[in-house]
């Protein structure tokens, strides 16, 4: 398998801040790679470096076999980049925006291509609406439509589903899987756990460094995180008390279940023993969500 993205040792500094700090990343062709990390961990900056919008201060590599620094203009022809902030023209209609994109990419049969993508993305009812008047979710759909219009080989999606409702998100991901099945490579940043779980592989960034990567299962398993679960009532009070005890990194209530997680099994067992009261605790395999919260709660010092 060849790599669609293959970059080594990327560095980017803004002032004194190392925003991306020695990032090495490889994404195979046809893979859906989830890009995770806390706010400000450098996801957007990395994606911008991949498509030549930001010049790395150090390091380099290839995108679709082309050098990210020298060949940026050629790379742009074959990637679709969906920006984190909506960046289409609010004073143009959906159709006009798509038509503009199609024309700039010099797509043959422009009008048919635009019609086809509008139908595929379910934008037909809103085709003549000004983009600025669309709701957030529909704007995201327009943006996705625009960045797949020219049939790119690589999609770079920066939080494409922020503010999108659950059903639309599901459809969005079905679409991404659909396109990946045709050989499209996708690098997608997200803060949603359920989306991370739908990725073939996830990459976790912290302070501009790659901290963890692998399939969602691998990441969960390799985290060495210990998780206990109990069911009962009045869990909120218990959770609040548990959070104050040593060794308990997180305690969260999900309906009638309480999850606690930490790295130190003995400390966790002491905690559940002292405060668990009438609750019955079972050890469960760590969920990706627990792992990510664990990672998010200790910036910088997380082990690889």
């Amino acid at each position, binding site marked *: 398998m060849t790599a669609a993205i293959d970059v080594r040792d990327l560095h980017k500094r803004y002032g004194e801040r190392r925003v991306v700090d020695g990032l090495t990343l490889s994404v195979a062709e046809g893979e859906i790679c989830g890009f995770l990390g806390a706010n400000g961990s450098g996801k957007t900056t990395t994606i*911008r470096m991949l498509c030549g919008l930001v*010049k790395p201060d150090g390091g380099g590599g290839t995108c679709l076999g082309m050098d990210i620094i020298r060949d940026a*203009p050629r790379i*742009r022809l074959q990637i679709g*980049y969906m*920006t984190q902030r909506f960046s289409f*023209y609010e*004073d143009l209609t959906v159709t006009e925006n798509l038509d503009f994109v199609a024309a700039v*990419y*010099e797509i043959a049969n422009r009008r048919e291509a635009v019609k086809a993508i509008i139908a595929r993305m379910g934008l037909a009812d809103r085709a003549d609406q000004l983009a600025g008047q669309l709701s957030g979710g529909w704007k995201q759909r327009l943006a996705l439509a625009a960045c797949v219009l020219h049939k790119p080989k690589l999609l770079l999606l920066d939080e494409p589903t922020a503010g999108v409702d659950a059903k639309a998100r599901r459809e969005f991901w079905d679409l991404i899987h659909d396109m990946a099945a045709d050989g499209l490579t996708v690098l997608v940043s997200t803060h949603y756990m359920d989306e991370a779980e739908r990725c073939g592989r996830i990459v976790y960034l912290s302070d501009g460094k790659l901290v963890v990567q692998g399939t969602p299962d691998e990441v969960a398993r390799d985290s060495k995180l210990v998780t206990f679960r109990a069911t009962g009532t009045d869990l909120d009070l218990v959770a609040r008390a548990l959070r104050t005890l040593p060794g308990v990194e997180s305690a969260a209530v999900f309906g009638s279940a309480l999850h606690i997680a930490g790295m130190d099994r003995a400390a966790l067992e002491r905690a559940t023993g002292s405060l668990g009261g009438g609750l019955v605790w079972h050890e469960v395999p760590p969920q990706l969500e627990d792992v990510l919260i664990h990672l998010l709660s200790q910036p910088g010092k997380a082990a690889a």
Partner: protein
Amino acid sequence: MNGFSFRRFLAVLRKEWIQVRRDPFTLRMIIALPVMQLFLFGYAINADPKHLPTGLLAVDHSKYERTLVAALKNTGYYDIRPLASEAEAERGLADGELLFVVNIPPNFDRSVDRGEQPSVLMDADATDPSAIGNAAAALAGLVSALDRDVPQAIQSSPAKAPFQFQLHARYNPEQLTVLNIVPGLICIVLTMSTLFVTTLAITRETERGTMENLLAMPVRPIEVMLAKVVPYIAIGYAQVVIIIAIAVVVFGLPVRGSVPLLTFVLGIFIASNLALGITFSTIARNQMQAIQMAQFTLLPSFLLSGFMFPFKGMPIWAQWAGEVIPMTHALRIVRGMLLKGNGFAEIAPDLWPIGAFTLVVAVIATWSYRVTLD
């Protein structure tokens, strides 16, 4: 991706045109601005410039002539240099090198002594009435200038002056300020609409966040810049037509020069503004900065170009600064073409500075267009 693509250029142009059309406020301003300015500040400008360049045509070099020239100089309004021929005088007036020409008739001294009341002809370039108004008014006090020299018998009395001035206002015989204002207004309005609007062109994309997308797409800077500029060339010409039409119909502006040549010259002037606007637009980080930069250049254009204050009446350093400004030259060309009927030969010296300015600024614009977000 290699080279300029006309199709991509058209794509951006189409988008820009839709955006211009969707912005009714700007469109209305574009129509209202020239009309309002023409009527509002058409009459408001007044100034008292001194040391105006004046040519002297005389054959005799007589005693009275010397006295008269000294008296003219003493008013402070006239800087006098002798001319060799009528032709030189005509050329000087047409180029704007001279604002006045004093014609002392032959045998002036004898005519005065005989009490024949000879006339001293003053040719004046009246394209800018405010420039010559006070100077011309000062002539009235000069008829007694020879009183100490002439024989007692014909010394000036209210009934009989030894000689008289005859003012010949050229180009704009009624000395209508509005006729002078129109060329200036054409230049000012073109500057306001083209410079300001293009100054905002790229910063607007940056501020709305659409720049990131535009940069990620395969458009080249030159395509984007050209496409952003072309709609405003059309708009600029529309404004020129509005201004000239009103001036012709309402104020009786003569259009003496060639219209195709005027169109061409204004095109170059528009280009100079657009180049400057785009440069500001690429340098400025946000719309506020961009507007400040535009204002920073607009003020000198108003003050130093000869629009507000007659150019020849300004101190030398200000004239030098004024020479750099495209509007100075555009103003001279448009005045010359509309009011004097100047042709290519007369305007060429003012045409190339605008062209050179445009070229230099366009190069800077292309350099400073950022292709990354850094």
